């Protein structure tokens, strides 16, 4: 029922601003398909648990996971409510991801524009990029201690290469005609970067940032294994030690949803800051 009305609403919105001739506008079609896949997964989960095909220790019922959600929201898990756990983790993620963007984008532009800078900085980035985060983490803990610094550093290092590499890629593929035109009009190097490279490279940089945010997320549980007492990643890890699989699955779902929400937010920001790309894509 709700899918049908959702389709109608979405359909109206998209058909008003574009001249698409398809019967079903693509956005509503993908909305229906996405909803169907979510409903299908839920149904499989219900079926498997209700029929008793899965050991409840490994796959608890959706109702049990919901109950764990309510309990963690109200009573909390080991001293912090769910919102506090999510808040702690989001703080860690946003600070480190923000740092990665603030440092990664200028670094990428520099490396994209100047061959010398690329030659100087590439070895370090290319070397540490494929290292498994846990291996890197033991070293970070030894150097920086068990507090927030080592956690944020790990998340930062996980997010940085994606942003740098996509920025290099974006800058080096900017249409040379645009650059030459700006130069012939007497643009300074500064103006060239701010007015030509950045706007042209923006969409690719944003795509790199979205992928980087994903990397930061994958490292979250690892970062919170060591010496944490709050955070959604820590909650998942701790609950696993006590075989509380309802909390583990609930935590994973919440973690996933916050990731999706952040990604949507970034796409929204992209749409607001770089409206030209979304217009040209249509």
């Amino acid at each position, binding site marked *: 029922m709700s899918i049908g009305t959702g389709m109608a609403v979405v359909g109206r919105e998209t058909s008003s601003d574009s001249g698409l001739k398809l019967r079903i506008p693509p956005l509503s079609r993908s909305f229906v398909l996405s909803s169907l896949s979510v409903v299908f997964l839920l149904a499989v989960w219900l079926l*498997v648990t209700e029929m008793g*095909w*899965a*050991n409840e*220790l*490994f*796959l608890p019922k959706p109702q049990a996971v919901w109950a764990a959600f309510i309990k963690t929201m109200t009573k909390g*898990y*080991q*001293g912090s409510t769910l919102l506090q756990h999510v808040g702690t983790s989001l703080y860690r993620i946003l600070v480190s991801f923000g740092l990665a963007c603030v440092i990664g984008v200028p670094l990428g532009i520099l490396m994209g524009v100047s061959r010398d800078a690329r030659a100087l900085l590439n070895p370090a980035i290319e070397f540490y990029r494929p290292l498994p985060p846990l291996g890197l983490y*033991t070293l970070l*803990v*030894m150097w920086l*201690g*068990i*507090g927030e610094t080592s956690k944020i550093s790990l998340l930062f290092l996980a997010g940085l290469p994606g942003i740098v590499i996509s920025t290099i890629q974006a800058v080096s593929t900017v249409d040379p005609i645009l650059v030459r035109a700006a130069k012939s009009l007497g643009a300074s190097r500064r103006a060239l970067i701010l007015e030509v490279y950045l706007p042209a490279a923006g969409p690719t940089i944003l795509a790199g940032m979205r992928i980087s945010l994903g990397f930061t997320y994958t490292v979250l549980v690892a970062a919170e294994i*060591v*010496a*944490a*007492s709050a955070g959604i990643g*820590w909650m998942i890890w*701790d609950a*696993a*030690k*006590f*075989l*509380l699989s309802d909390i583990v699955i609930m935590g994973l779902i919440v973690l996933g949803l916050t990731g999706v929400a952040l990604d949507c937010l970034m796409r929204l920001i992209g749409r607001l800051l770089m409206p030209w790309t979304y217009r040209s894509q249509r």
Partner: protein
Amino acid sequence: MFRPIASLTAAVLAFSGLAHASDKPDKVTVGYLNLVNAQLVTKHLGLIAKEMPGVEIKYVKVGGGGDMLRVIAGNDVDFGGIGNPPTAIAITRGLPIKGILVINMLDYVEAMVVRTSKNIKSLTDLKGKTVAAPFGSTTHYLLLQALNDEGVDPASMKIIDLPPSDIAAAWLRGDLDAAWFWEPNLDKAVNNDGHIFLTSGLMAKRGYPTWDVGVVMNAFAEKYPDYVEKFVKAECAGIDFWLKNPAKTAEIIAEELSLPIADATRMMNGTAMVPCDQQLTAPYLGTSAKKGQFVDTLVSTADFLVKQDRLPKLLPRKDFENFIDPSYIEKAIAK
């Protein structure tokens, strides 16, 4: 989603195994804790392999009780070893295992070390300090129990979860004021501005004994009961060797854990081995007819964990009694 699939395939394999039932396993996997006890002797001397000719023996080292639970839940071992808090968790969560053997009784091989320069004289002095323990382990349980007994609120200090090796590293950096963990890493903290404040042996005298128990997966025990007996026999031989040849044992421990002999000897003295015939007496497993005090310890541990909100509910005593299964030792000794 992997787990149900894994258990499904395990079930299928078990059924196919039943179809052409053989009385000999191809391979036996033993999960052992990174601890100082006679399991290292059994492993070093290859005693299990001697009892089970033609069977491949695989040893898997596991960091702590919490990890061992995951290994057991994932059906990755045939035999394992866990302390009483993880055991209480395992029973309550219905893991398919039985306790068949006392691996060791913990004395000062596990201890709470405090930073000497911080002048900590009582548990109340820990307020506002940073204290570490591997969560879900015996020492985490004892730390909370000790604070509880002295009426100190755990929320008044920062209690953090670290594996033993990371506690040692964090201690050396000066990040921790106190930690309750075990050898072979404990020593590194003691030698660096630390001294022992409380030991697990002292807590045992206060009525909170901690120990590690050898467990077998139910599916394995049903299929190869003879091999469970052989396993127990090998471990008993290791315990006997430990008790009769302390000097040789120290050499073995030193080699297995890459330690100086002096350290190995000290760590050995901090943990007590129980000869298998004594394991059948009241302070330990007891007999099949009358289970021993291990059941009491498990019930009180589970009760504590329920109060800590780490377990959903306290099961009836019967479930804890059913977990303890001294029958394999009884058979091994009778022969």
